[in-house]
C-alpha cells in the first residue's frame, strides 16, 4: 500500500496520463519514505493503479509500459464533462505516444534518471568502471551531475500540477516535491554499497562521479535566455551558458505566467533516457611531510642547510592508494637516504591538509638562524664590529630584492633581526651570526641591494660590505613532529 492520500488522486491521474514514471509521481505527492522508492517501477506502477481504482483487485492487470489503461481514460473523460478547464489542463500534458512492444516510455520529467538509470544493471556498470580504475578505498562519495533541462521540466510540471490541484482547493509548493537527486541517491547508494562492499559516506575522500546528458532536449532551456537575459551572460570559460546555476536562477526569477506562456506547451516525452557522458573516479590529495637536508630548497642554491633540516611537505594528487602505515614510510625513508648522498630525509610521515596550512602560517612567525662570512672594503678591528652584538630587534625595511623582483611583487617588507653575534677573523673579514624573523633577506642586509634594504650592514659599519658565504644554522619550527628512530 502506498502512503498516498485522497488529495493525491488528481495528481496521480494527471501524471500517469502524461507518461510520468511512478517514482516521479511519488515525488510530486510528497512521499518521503525512502523504502517506497526502492520498490521496482513495475510494482509501483501497479500500486498506483490500485490506489486510483479504490481497492486491491478491481482493476484489470495493467502492464507497466503500456499506454494508460483505457478504463482510466474513461474515468477521466466522465469527470471532465462538466469541467472544461480541467480538460484543457490535461491536454497541456502530452497524451499520445504508444510505444511498440514492451518498451517502457522514458519519463518526461526525470528523463530516465529514476527509471533504468538507478537500477542495479546501471549501478553494476558504474561499479565496473570503478573497479577498472584501480583505486583502494574504504568508502566513497557518489556525485551525480544532471542535465539542466531537468530543472525546466520539473518546473513546468509543477506549475501545471499546481494549477490543477489549485482548482480543487489544494496548494502544491515547489518545496513539497521531493528532490530528484535526493531520491536518486536513496535508491542508488544501497546498491553501490552492496556491489562495491563499502559504505557511501558524504565525507569520503574518494569520489565516484557520473555525468548525465540528454542532447535530445538540450533546447528545452533556450527559451529562458529571452525571458531572463541577465542570467545567461556568455563568459570565456563556459562552453554553454545554460549551466545548472544559471537555469536555476532564471527559474527563480521568471513569473509563473510568463513561463507557461513561453514554454512549449507540450512536455514532449523523450525518445530515450539520458546518456552517461562520463564516469570518473578521483581521490582527494594526501600529504606526506618530513625534514630534508639538501643543497636546494627555499634557501638559495649557494646556501647550506645545517641543523635539523628544513621541513617539507608533498601533496600526492589523486592517489590510487591513500593510506600508508608508518612501517612502510620508514622503509621509504631508508630507501631515499641510501640511494643518494645529495639529499637526506627524516621524520617522514602522513599529515593532514590542515597541518600543512598551519605549517605555512608558522613559517611567517618563526625565526631562523644564519651564519655569514662578511668581507669589508675598509680595514676593521674587533672594536669596530662589537657594537653589532648590542643591537636588539633591529628593524629593516627591505624592498623586494632585485634578484627575485622578476617573480615577486614590488613591495617594502619590514623585517626584524632579533640579535647578532660576531667573530673577528682579520682586517677585512668576520663571521656574523644572525637570528632573524622568517622572511628576512640576509644577503641583502649584508650588501644593501643597491641601498634598497635599509638599514644594512654597510650603513651600520659605514663601508661597503659583501657576503662570501651563508649557512642556515637552523629553522626554529617544531614541525613536523619528530619520530622515534
Amino acid at each position, binding site marked *: 500500500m502506498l502512503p498516498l492520500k485522497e488529495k493525491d488522486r488528481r495528481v496521480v491521474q494527471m501524471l500517469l496520463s502524461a507518461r510520468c514514471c511512478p517514482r516521479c509521481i511519488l515525488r510530486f505527492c510528497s512521499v518521503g519514505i525512502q523504502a517506497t522508492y526502492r520498490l521496482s517501477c513495475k510494482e509501483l506502477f501497479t500500486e498506483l493503479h490500485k490506489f486510483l481504482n479504490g481497492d486491491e483487485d478491481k482493476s484489470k492487470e495493467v502492464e507497466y509500459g503500456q499506454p494508460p489503461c483505457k478504463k482510466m481514460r474513461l474515468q477521466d473523460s466522465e469527470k471532465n464533462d462538466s469541467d472544461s478547464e480541467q480538460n484543457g489542463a490535461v491536454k497541456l500534458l502530452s497524451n499520445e505516444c504508444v510505444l511498440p512492444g514492451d518498451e517502457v516510455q522514458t519519463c518526461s520529467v526525470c528523463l530516465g534518471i529514476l527509471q533504468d538509470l538507478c537500477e542495479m544493471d546501471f549501478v553494476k556498470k558504474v561499479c565496473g568502471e570503478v573497479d577498472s580504475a584501480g583505486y583502494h578505498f574504504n568508502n566513497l562519495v557518489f556525485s551525480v551531475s544532471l542535465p539542466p533541462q531537468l530543472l525546466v521540466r520539473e518546473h513546468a510540471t509543477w506549475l501545471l500540477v499546481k494549477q490543477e490541484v489549485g482548482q480543487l482547493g489544494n496548494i502544491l509548493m515547489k518545496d513539497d516535491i521531493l528532490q530528484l537527486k535526493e531520491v536518486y541517491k536513496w535508491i542508488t547508494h544501497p546498491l553501490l554499497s552492496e556491489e562495491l562492499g563499502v559504505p557511501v559516506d558524504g565525507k569520503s575522500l574518494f569520489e565516484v562521479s557520473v555525468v548525465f546528458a540528454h542532447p535530445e532536449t538540450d533546447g528545452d532551456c533556450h527559451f529562458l535566455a529571452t525571458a531572463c537575459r541577465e542570467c545567461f551572460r556568455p563568459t570565456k570559460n563556459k562552453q554553454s551558458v545554460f549551466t545548472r546555476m544559471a537555469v536555476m536562477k532564471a527559474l527563480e526569477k521568471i513569473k509563473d505566467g510568463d513561463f507557461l506562456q513561453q514554454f512549449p506547451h507540450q512536455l514532449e516525452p523523450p525518445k530515450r533516457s539520458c546518456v552517461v557522458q562520463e564516469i570518473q573516479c578521483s581521490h582527494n590529495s594526501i600529504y606526506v611531510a618530513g625534514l630534508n637536508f639538501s643543497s636546494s630548497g627555499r634557501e638559495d642554491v649557494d646556501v647550506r642547510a645545517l641543523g635539523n633540516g628544513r621541513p617539507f611537505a608533498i601533496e600526492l594528487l589523486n592517489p590510487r592508494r591513500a593510506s600508508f602505515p608508518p612501517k612502510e614510510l620508514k622503509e621509504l625513508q631508508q630507501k631515499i637516504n641510501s640511494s643518494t648522498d645529495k639529499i637526506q630525509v627524516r621524520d617522514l610521515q602522513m599529515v593532514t591538509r590542515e597541518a600543512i596550512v598551519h605549517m605555512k602560517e608558522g613559517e611567517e612567525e618563526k625565526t631562523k638562524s644564519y651564519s655569514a662570512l662578511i668581507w669589508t672594503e675598509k*680595514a676593521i678591528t674587533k672594536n669596530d664590529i662589537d657594537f653589532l652584538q648590542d643591537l636588539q630587534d633591529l628593524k629593516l625595511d627591505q624592498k623586494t630584492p632585485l634578484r*627575485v623582483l622578476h617573480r615577486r*611583487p614590488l613591495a617594502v617588507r619590514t623585517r626584524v633581526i632579533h640579535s647578532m653575534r660576531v667573530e673577528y677573523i682579520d682586517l677585512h673579514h668576520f663571521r656574523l651570526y644572525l637570528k632573524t624573523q622568517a622572511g628576512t633577506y640576509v644577503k641583502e642586509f649584508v650588501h*644593501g641591494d*643597491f*641601498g634598497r634594504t635599509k638599514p644594512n650592514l654597510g650603513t651600520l659599519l659605514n663601508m661597503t660590505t659583501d657576503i662570501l658565504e651563508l649557512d642556515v644554522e637552523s629553522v626554529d619550527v617544531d614541525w613536523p613532529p619528530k619520530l622515534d628512530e
Partner: protein
Amino acid sequence: MEVEEAQAQTYPSMVDRYFRRWYKTDVKGKPCEDHCILHHSNRICVITLAESHPLLQSGKEIKNISYQISANCSRLQNKVSGKSKRGGQFLTELAPLCRILCSDGEEYTIYSCIRGRLLEVNENILQDPRLLQRKPSTEGYVAVVLPKFEESKSITQGLINQEQYQDIISSRHKTTAEVAGNTDLQESQS
C-alpha cells in the same frame, strides 16, 4: 693616525656576480653622455651612469635632481602592482628618466636606453645627489626597468659590451690627445 687599508675585492663584487654590464655611449647624440645598463640574469635591468659620464667627472656639483620629466609625467608617480608589475610606465630607448641640474648651469637628462616597464626610480639620490656620483653602480643607481619577456634576449642588441665600451673610451682619449698634440704643433709652428 691610522691608515685605513681599502682592500680591492679579489673576488667579484655583488654587481659583477649577478649582473652583466652593457653600455650606450653618446646617448641622444650628446657627447660622452654614456649610460651603463646592469643586466641581471633574471632579465631585470638597472639603469646607471657609466664612469665616463660628465656628471661623474671631478668638479661637477649637482644642484638638483628631478623626476618630473614633463608637465604630465613624473617618474615618481610610477606605481606597479602584482607579480606582473602592472601599471608601470612603459619606456622606449630614448624615454627620459630624470633631469639633473648642476651648479655650473649644465643640465643633463638620463635616458632609459632600453625598452621595458619602469619598476622604480631611485629616490635616495633626491635626498643625497652626491650618492649618484660616489656610488653610481650601486646606491647611486637611477632606475630599475623590466623588459618584456619576449624581448629579454634582444634587449642588448642596441647596446655595446664592456670591451667595446673600453675601446670607445680609449679612442676618445686618443682623439683628444691628437687634437691637443696638433694644436700644440700648430701653435709652435705659427
